């Protein structure tokens, strides 16, 4: 029984990890790549960790696996947020199908948001023109 649960969890986790890698390759933008990587790899790694903890069945290894899981679950959103913030402020271009950039219109002075010449035609009113 434990073997079956471990097998299902490991296959699910490795499938999610492979989907995360495929998303990192196939997505058109830094930000979409970042969200594909963080979300899918977090769920995949959680499945792999639960499967390994079931397979070992030891208290010491369970503590270590739980600490790895807690650390990954805490740090992956933080690292994703930091990467997105840094790449946005560094002027990495968004995908051309992006419908909403809430940061561009009312950027505070002093931040490194690059261009201000698109202020008139892009905004929340532009969201219905795509598709």
């Amino acid at each position, binding site marked *: 029984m434990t073997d079956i649960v471990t097998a299902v969890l490991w296959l699910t986790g490795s499938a999610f990890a492979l989907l995360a890698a495929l998303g990192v*390759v196939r997505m058109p933008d*830094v930000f979409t790549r970042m969200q594909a990587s963080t979300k899918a790899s977090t769920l995949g790694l959680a499945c792999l960790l639960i499967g390994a903890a079931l397979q070992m069945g030891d208290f010491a290894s369970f503590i270590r696996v739980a600490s790895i899981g807690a650390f990954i679950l805490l740090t992956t959103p933080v690292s994703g947020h930091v*990467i997105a913030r840094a790449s946005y402020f560094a002027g990495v271009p968004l995908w051309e199908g992006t419908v909403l950039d809430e940061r561009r219109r009312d950027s505070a002075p002093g931040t490194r948001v690059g261009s201000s010449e698109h202020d008139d035609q892009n905004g929340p009113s532009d969201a219905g023109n795509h598709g």
Partner: protein
Amino acid sequence: MLDAISQITLVMLGLALLVAFIRLVKGPTLPDRIVAMDLFGVLVVGLIVVLAGWSGVRATLDAAIVIALVGFLGTIAYATYVERGDPQ
């Protein structure tokens, strides 16, 4: 049964590493490569955990903890470098 499942899992994780390596080589900007390196850290932690659960060697979990820590710190350092811009 679990041996075959473990081998399939390890092959899929290695394939994920190879696919992420495509983005690491090809990525047009530096944040793309940072995302690929962050995914590398998570995938290597998953590989080590599956190896530890398959073989029963518990000492490799400590290596997984260390790799998770260092990967997070490396991502934060790279992002700080990108946000600060070129030193001039």
